């Protein structure tokens, strides 16, 4: 697997200015409208390197959800349940009021 630095053709200890120059050179080589895949890879590498520069802060503050699960069916069920509850409580409320 190519490292982000390899992708931009620079050494792992390149200074931020060098990273940017290399990134711009790659943009010239792979314009987004003619080389979308290469462009995306170049951009991903650039993002990764820049993120690395600030990774120390990020790791500490990065509160990602532990688990992300997906099921809109259950969403619907839960919503219906919740709505049903509201309905009932409304009925009860009316009953209790009168």
């Amino acid at each position, binding site marked *: 697997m190519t490292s982000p630095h390899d992708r931009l053709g620079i050494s792992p200890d390149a200074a931020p200015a060098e990273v940017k120059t290399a990134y*711009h050179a790659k943009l010239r080589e792979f*314009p*987004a409208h003619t080389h*979308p895949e290469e462009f*995306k890879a170049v951009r991903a590498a650039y993002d990764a390197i820049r993120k690395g520069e600030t990774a120390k802060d990020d790791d500490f503050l990065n509160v990602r*959800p532990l688990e992300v*699960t*997906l099921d809109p069916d259950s969403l619907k069920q839960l919503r219906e349940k919740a709505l049903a509850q509201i309905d009932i409580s409304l009925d009860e409320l009316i009953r209790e009021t009168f």
Partner: protein
Amino acid sequence: MTRAVGIDLGTTNSEVAIVENGQARVLPGEDGDLILPSCVGFSETGKLLVGREALRQYEAAPERTVKSIKRWMGTDHKTLLGDREYLPHEISAIILRSLKQRAETALAESIAQAVITVPAYFTDAQRQATKTAGEIAGFEVLQIINEPTAAAIAYDLRSEETERVLVYDLGGGTFDVSVVEITGEVTEVLASHGNNRLGGDDFDRRLQLHLKELFRKQHGMDVPDDPVTNARLLRTAEQAKIDLSTHAFTTVREAFLGSKGKTALHLEAEIARTDFENLIHPLLDETLEAIDRALSDATLQPDDLDRIILVGGSTRIPLIQHMIESHLGQAPTDGIQPDLCVALGASLQAGVLVGEAVDAILVDVVPHSLGIAAAMSTPMGIVPGFFSVVVPRNSVIPVSRSEVYSTLFDSQETVEIEVFQGENPIAEENVPLGSFKVEDLPSQPAGSVQVEVHFDFDLNGILTVTATEKGKGQQGSLIVSNTGVHRLSSHEISQARADLEALFEQDEAIESSASDSPIVTLSPELSVLVDRARTLADSLDDEQADELQDLLDQIEAVAEGNSDEDLEVLQSELEDFLYYASREN
């Protein structure tokens, strides 16, 4: 090599530009005007009017004229013009077709390709509607690019030092702010924010309401609420707004706005710039908040900005310049052509795409976050309906991103992927882009079946979402290429294009038959006067009524080509007559 144009399709005005020998220039119409008002209408005889001609009749015939259609792009709002209803992209197509004709006449060659700009904050549906309009107009739309970005490309820096530039774009109907980094020929957007329903039109409307209020105070009654009166007041408000950009005071005079018994009522008022500023201040505060969010998204402080560029006609309002300067501690850069730079930038990008020798590399971002509805584990248990962002706003495009999700129940057989666009943590509060299902998942305990959701967003703003079950490889996918509006098939587009061509040709036929008989059309001002005179006629005594009828007959004779008296003289006679008649009554 075929050439491609760049088009700024604005709320109020539109322009078309081309690159020649590496230099961009805006192409003039036959009248030499670089600007085409984004206004479409039909004359009394059914002749199609586009631009200044249509705008001229707006006051007199608002029911046959439409402007600011851009505000409705991406919706199915219908506009009745003459005997037919038009969708927003159909009206826009008429404007684009007119710009195409303008370019072809100016360059004496046929033009088939274009880059069209949209506000950076336009949604997917609004972008697609714009692209469709371009296709109906007969263009191959090479790319839809963002207006502030186009302005930044046009802004020729020619410095290898990196400059950070804030582009503040306030037009007739939309507002955008973009933070851009320019290094040599590379223009990279760091963040964009905006409001698709904020612009000069809103200032006009506030001032129009203010004028109505003044009228009510002066006469103790409301201005009649009919389309013609509203259109007149809106034009008056717009003119007053423009005057107040260069003057501290302006006088508004509108005669015959209404009547009380037999007395005609006029509006005459002095508006101070400060009055106008008080009306629009709350709207401008919103734009400052947008600046702050764009800066924070770009992780920059106001001090980090090297330059502020103002784009769009509304930025001529002095208060805007002052507010930006005091908010950011820096005066905006002079010497930008706020009306033309977007079209110029679009033409440069068009040049790049067709291989002209243009040094411009554009790196743009997606303005809205893209993601799906998902259940998330929270301190209160698993809660469904959250918006799980896959492509965060301000990601560079084109972009591909994936996230892995897992099933919520034991033996869950299907997952439904609902795709949204927006920033609200509750999925349903965002703009729905579509949904699809992945079925026949392997029967396993909750959480052990993993589904990878892959988003692919290309340069043309087309989003493809693919979901793949990691074990067995079940797949489902969705191509979101048009939402909100009915997606036109290529057949429907060619049909619409043929209809549009017919409209333009029929227009030429009417024009040539009209030139056979020398019929003079009345100016909108005169038409309004004549209409008013007719309504007034009943309330006059016989002598006055005869005098009026005589005047009207003379005007009619000129209009029918049976008399060569000077219409302007007759018009001023009629004005005087109406003025005194209304006084006496």
